[in-house]
């Protein structure tokens, strides 16, 4: 855990946002929790980073943050990639809070497109950065129409899309942003997480909050809420699998990234969750890559 004090003479309001903005976002969050999976419009602010860098997630985090929180930020499962590092530094600077890379130590986890492999607990909140919150957007570009479809629970089009996948490829080819139904009512975009993570959303003990900055929408999944990935009886939902374990820690149950090693086609598969991989290594687990190197 590290803390960093603010630069002298340059004071931001706690967590950057002004208090009225926080109240507006807080009220939207309460509605989002009360209507699981429904996208609540909010007056998204410009943040000191471009859209696409997690401005929605950052506004949600800034509005719920308190000084005792311990923040973890991940980008595709990794704590040490650009987006994660810059957001972590941002909150150290504007809120002076403690940060961590350990999933168990965090009270608040902001994520870009992965859910940690370590199961989350009741005391934790997971904040997702969402680029396009509307799951029906690529099927129906008009906001007035998608809003009506949600109101009428008219989701046939989404099943047609999945069916067309089967007709064309023989299986449902959607591998990320795989649509889910929340609390048996709203169809929700789980943000572009791999479908591998969808089962972790179902009846998760932690509160899950989603923020889309450019599209100005907030939505939520309360703890222990049913989150069902859409499928068909004869084509049930399946998650990705790999025919080899992580090269570094040897785990065969985590989500693996393919890494190209040279221009001869050599590749290795490693855990996308860096904290999960590092803690397994610390426990003495070794993957085939490590054994070969010895």
């Amino acid at each position, binding site marked *: 855990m590290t803390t960093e004090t603010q630069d002298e003479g340059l004071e931001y309001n706690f967590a950057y946002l002004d208090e009225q903005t926080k109240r*507006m976002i807080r009220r939207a969050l309460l*509605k989002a929790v*009360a209507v*699981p999976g429904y996208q609540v*419009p909010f007056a998204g602010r410009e943040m000191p980073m471009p859209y696409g860098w997690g401005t929605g997630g950052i506004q949600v985090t800034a509005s719920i943050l308190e000084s005792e929180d311990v923040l973890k930020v991940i980008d595709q499962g990794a704590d040490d990639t650009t987006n994660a590092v810059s957001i972590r530094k941002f909150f150290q600077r504007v809120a002076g809070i403690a940060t961590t890379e350990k999933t168990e130590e965090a009270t608040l986890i902001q994520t870009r497109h992965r859910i940690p492999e370590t199961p989350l607990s009741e005391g934790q909140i997971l904040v997702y950065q969402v680029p396009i919150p509307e799951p029906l957007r690529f099927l129906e570009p008009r906001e007035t129409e998608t809003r009506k479809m*949600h109101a009428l629970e008219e989701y046939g089009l989404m099943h047609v899309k999945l069916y067309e996948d089967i007709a064309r490829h023989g299986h449902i080819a959607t591998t990320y942003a795989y649509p889910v139904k929340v609390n048996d009512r709203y169809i929700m975009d789980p943000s572009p997480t791999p479908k591998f993570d969808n089962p972790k959303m179902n009846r998760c003990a932690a509160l899950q909050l989603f923020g889309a900055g450019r599209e100005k929408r907030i939505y939520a999944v309360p703890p222990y809420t049913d989150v069902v990935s859409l499928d068909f009886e004869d084509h049930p939902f399946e998650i990705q699998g790999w025919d080899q374990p992580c090269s570094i820690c040897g785990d065969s149950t985590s989500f693996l990234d393919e890494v190209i090693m040279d221009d001869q086609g050599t590749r290795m598969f490693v855990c996308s969750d860096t904290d999960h991989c590092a803690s397994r290594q610390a426990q003495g687990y070794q993957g085939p890559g490590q054994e070969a190197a010895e």
Partner: protein
Amino acid sequence: MAITDLTPGFSDPVRDAAVSFRIILDAMARPGEVKSLPVVAPVPAPLNAAAVCVALSLLDSDTPYWLAPDLRNDRIIGHLSFHTGAPFEPDYKKAQFAFFPVEDLATVMQDLSIGTDEYPDRSATAVALVAGFGATGGVRLTGPGIETANDLSPVGVTPAGWKALERNSILFPLGVDILFAGPESLAAIPRSTRLTELEA
């Protein structure tokens, strides 16, 4: 009313609003769990500590609020106006937040805004003031935020009040979200929660 009559608000507004909101969010995300207030701001009678906490952390000039006649006086309206800037709304059908004694639940719930099919978030939040939370009776709650079932027994809810809450949950995704505000703690029943009455 002279400025010297004003009761102070949060002693550390930024921090106190943040910790209060986290409790309210936690209560809303876990219906039926009674959450202790992390901070207590001075309470102008006849409001109570949790109601003041909710008002100071969530109200501002964008949120017309309504007070039941039993809670309404110049001192309270002046207090909320000074600390939050929120306009008092005499017609509770138009209010975004409604504060009332829990005994009035059945009548108030009839006419609070429940949102629209396309914008279910444009609904009111009810803040029902209770004397506390009992150990028996009340309702069994199930639904989002609840692992198996939670029992909640706010003191003073009438049988008609419970019926009003059952009707409210049938309206989902429309409906009103209810915060039960006590002198030391608060609990919530959002519209997504299903209720079964328990024998007292």
